[in-house]
């Protein structure tokens, strides 16, 4: 992955920033935005997006052609992401969103596979070790935001593959 995020050609195409009326065109447009948004989040390792700040977001407004996405379009994209569980609103007003370039389930599986390959089942790991530790430096979930990490682990927990321990002094997880 290069240092510079690579924007697709659509990014400099003005109509890309207006929600299209033609059904087929709109589907293409939304899907292009999905890919772009997920790639961007993966590249910058950001998981949260505030719809109210979309106009200042480096991705959602292109100053070079003086176009930006309005809230309506952002919501349309996010809703579509939500449909495939690649995003979820954090608050009830649907202002703040978390974006998962891997769905929570995928994240869980990635983590579990890693633990299994390390032979670290039946042991307790802190959340910090899991996301920032030396052992996971090469893993994709390295640097993952804690909120997202916990949600991914909760999914695993539901499948009986781990237990999340959240107390005041210890935030850890035990894998089975």
């Amino acid at each position, binding site marked *: 992955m290069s240092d510079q995020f690579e924007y697709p050609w659509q990014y400099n195409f*003005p109509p*890309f920033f*207006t929600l*299209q009326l*033609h059904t087929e065109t709109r589907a293409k447009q939304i899907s292009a935005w999905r890919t772009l948004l997920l790639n961007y989040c993966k590249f910058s390792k950001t998981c949260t997006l505030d719809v109210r700040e979309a106009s200042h977001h480096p991705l959602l407004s292109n100053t070079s052609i003086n*176009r930006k996405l309005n809230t309506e379009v952002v919501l349309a994209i996010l809703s579509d992401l939500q449909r495939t569980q690649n995003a979820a609103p954090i608050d009830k007003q649907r202002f703040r969103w978390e974006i998962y370039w891997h769905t929570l389930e995928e994240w869980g599986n990635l983590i579990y596979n890693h633990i299994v390959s390390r032979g670290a089942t039946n042991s307790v790991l802190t959340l910090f070790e899991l996301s920032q530790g030396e052992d996971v430096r090469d893993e994709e979930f390295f640097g993952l935001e804690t909120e997202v990490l916990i949600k991914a682990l909760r999914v695993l927990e539901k499948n009986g593959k781990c237990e999340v321990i959240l107390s005041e002094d210890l935030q850890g997880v035990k894998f089975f």
Partner: protein
Amino acid sequence: MDRIEYTSPMLLPNESYLVKDQNVRLYDGDQKTSFEGGELILTTHRIMWGRPGAIALGQVCLSLPLNLVVFVEEESSNAFTFSRSRKIVLHLNEASPERNEGPQPSSIYNYIKLSFREGLNSDIVSLLNDCMQKRKWEWSQTQPNVSTKPSLPNIKLRTGIAGIERSIQEKQKQTDESISLAFKDLNKLMTMAKDMVLLSQNISTKIREKQGDITEDETVRFKLYLLSLGIDDPVTRDAYKSDNQYYRSLAKQVVDILITPITEAGGIMALTDVFCRVNRARGLELLSPEDLLNACRLMESLDLPLKLYRFDSGVIILQLVSMSEESIAESTAEMLNEKGSLSSEELARLLGISVLLAKERLLTTERCGKSCRDDSTEGLRFYPNLLLKDD
């Protein structure tokens, strides 16, 4: 006879000598008078009678101003009196009170007769009538006024604003007069035109009724005459019994009128433009918008080359049947590819059509998925649909 006055035979300014006759006797009504065997001279202003030679010498003579003459007729010659003399009767107006002294202060008759012993100079009646029509004696009264008038304002012009105002007033009066004169003619023309239209309509209905009696050739020729008068045979409601039939013929006529302009305008014309054009072409017998709309609705069922189409926005147009949404989209998409992007204003300018229609074209293109929109603070623009074309 009491209208006749004594005057000098000198001609007045503007008066001119017309004709002279010998051996004329005057009658007061039917009564013979003692004025017989004299010379009669007709001028543009009056009739003069004098004893032979008196007029030539400039002596006093009798005169009748022509402005008193109402009517001139020649008395039919009496079969029982074998006289050679012919008479003309002059019917007269009341004499003006300020006339000169005459030979007879009062008379019971309102006419006098002139008896020509030597036979009637046939010119004299027509000359008299001519004089009475021209009324030259009135000119002589007005003309001096006219000639002095311009000199008066000229003097007054120098007296400043009042003078200027007066000259302006004068000018206004003049234009006023010339305008009313011009419209007098126009009124006449209009009344004439009305008659002409009525006449032509009469004839054309007759032709319609008697289609069988008149050969095709004659009908065509007559219609040509009407056309050359500027009066076509507009389809009017009265000529048809049912509305439906009327609308059908109207639809055909509208198509005839508009097929060329619509083809030239790219296959589409807004109904408002259609309305204007049709009514301008008809000139008379204007259509109501409702009739036009009803007629246009029938076009499709009549297999005519134009049809009514309503855009989603509510704009109603007439378009060529050969034009479909796809062909509009296709041609507009081509323009988009050529230009990169277009606003409706730009497309309107390129195609020479109205902005409204240009927008409809672009929206149609978008609906067909051949363009995509860019709605920004700079306005609505359309781009080739790269979003769909790619991958």
